[in-house]
């Protein structure tokens, strides 16, 4: 049996001739906290909609728990095992918090009353207040509660912390990590907030123009990428050809900044071979990896 919660192969989807997904490949290991990153319009929400059976792909396959997300019958089975927080966080405005919980519960036989009580308390959700009277942040929390309490094996969260204040963001992130650890729930979340992703994700995928451009275990990626700064005594010698592994080079007068994608030792050795050069290496954050890849993709296209 596959230990992948989500497996996407060569997914393509166009809207009016414009490609939203352009051969996306994605593997989300079961039990992981998976950060799905990309700019606006990169294809994150389209991917999620395909996984939820709301959109059909033009080409390629999307499987969740080994089931075909494009098949209507399988899609119902998939959705019974998924907790979903939509991008807009819109619920039925005319229902109260209690009513919407009572509405949602019968669809999921494994509903957990203990979790319901816990999150109602933790998120400070007033049971008798109408959804339309809740702030955006409170609506996000309510949606998260509805997604979590039915013992979902997979949580798909589209920008889950949008509209939350910093304290609430911390609460939510902490709960997601606790949920993954305690229940083995796979958490797949899309976000613009790179610091949040870096804080809790163990796997990431960066998507740009409908394609995965970086994917893997976050720690491995951070170990592979390094910033190497070279300060030269004079101008850079002409015609330097860097060894393999240089993702990008920026030069500001006598300072050269190199982003290494693997092979950092060889790059450092090459830099040190330049007479009088001072070489330092720094760890790289997710933000830098993200920006570097997205920008270089865009430059390549230009």
């Amino acid at each position: 049996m596959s230990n992948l919660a989500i497996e996407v192969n060569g997914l393509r989807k166009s809207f009016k001739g414009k490609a939203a997904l352009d051969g996306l490949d994605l593997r989300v290991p079961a039990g992981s906290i998976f950060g799905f990153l990309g700019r606006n319009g990169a294809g994150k929400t389209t991917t999620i909609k395909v996984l939820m059976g709301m959109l059909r792909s033009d080409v390629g396959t999307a499987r969740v728990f080994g089931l075909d997300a494009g098949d209507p019958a399988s899609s119902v089975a998939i959705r019974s095992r998924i907790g979903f927080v939509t991008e807009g966080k819109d619920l039925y405005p005319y229902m109260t918090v209690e009513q919407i919980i009572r509405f949602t519960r019968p669809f999921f036989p494994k509903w957990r009353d203990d979790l319901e009580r816990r999150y109602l308390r933790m998120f400070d959700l007033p049971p008798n207040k109408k959804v339309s009277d809740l702030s955006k942040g409170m609506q996000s929390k309510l949606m998260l509660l509805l997604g979590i309490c039915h013992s979902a094996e997979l949580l798909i969260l589209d920008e889950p912390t949008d509209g939350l204040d910093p304290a609430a963001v911390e609460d939510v992130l902490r709960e997601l990590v606790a949920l993954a650890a305690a229940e083995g729930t796979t958490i797949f979340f899309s976000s613009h907030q790179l610091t949040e992703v870096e804080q809790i994700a163990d796997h990431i995928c960066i998507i740009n123009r409908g394609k995965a451009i970086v994917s893997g275990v976050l720690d491995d990626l951070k170990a592979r990428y390094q910033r190497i700064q070279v300060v030269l005594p004079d101008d850079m010698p002409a015609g330097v050809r860097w060894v393999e592994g240089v993702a990008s080079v920026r030069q500001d007068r006598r300072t050269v900044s190199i982003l290494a994608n693997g092979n950092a030792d060889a790059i450092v050795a090459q830099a040190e071979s330049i007479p009088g050069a001072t070489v330092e290496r720094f760890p790289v954050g997710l933000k830098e990896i993200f920006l570097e890849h997205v920008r270089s993709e865009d430059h390549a296209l230009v």
Partner: protein
Amino acid sequence: MLWYKAWRETRLRVLLMFAVVIFILFQVHQHVPLNRQNWASLQLQFMWMIIPLSLAGSGVRAEAPFRPVKGLQGSMYFTLSLPVNRLRLLYVRSAVGLLEAAGLVAIGCCLAVLAFPGLREQITMADGVAYALTVFVCGFSAFGLSTILATFLDQQWQGMVAMATYFFARSVTFGLNGDPTSPLARFDFFRAMGTATTLHSMPWVAMATSAAVGLACYLAAMKVELSRQY
């Protein structure tokens, strides 16, 4: 729970339509001497209630925001994330819409008889039931039409376009088929709704025609709903 949700989403509309029924009856009570000949044409008004009501049969598209605004999606995606197949969503909303329409037609007919004592002497209870059934089945075409329109039109256009299409069809039918002795007249379900039917003179052909039109539209709506992408 989907039944409860559909009722919650349409109950205001039902109350409004009920108020319209009362208003029409009141107006007629004030100005028109109702008798066996003209009471059916009054009831015809109730047919129009079926159109907005039957928007309850429009499926999840009705939950999209009234105007598409960035960042505002309506509750549509939450509903679609429930482990329910799309046809069930459509069936439940349709069933609730039909029940509401049936209820209002029945209430309208009963109130007409109650409000006009003279009419009670001329119309039997059986005639009233026969007429209510006629209006309900002949109005099923409007239900089918508005359901199919609602599967691909945005919320703000659904009622208006359904109403305009139905009114246009009524005018065309009347133009083509003004002569009640015409062989086509018995297919005319608009005319059937305006005729004082009794248990012994049910317009079965017109009712079957309306049911067929409504069913065809409804099947088309199901097909659209199944193939729809959100």
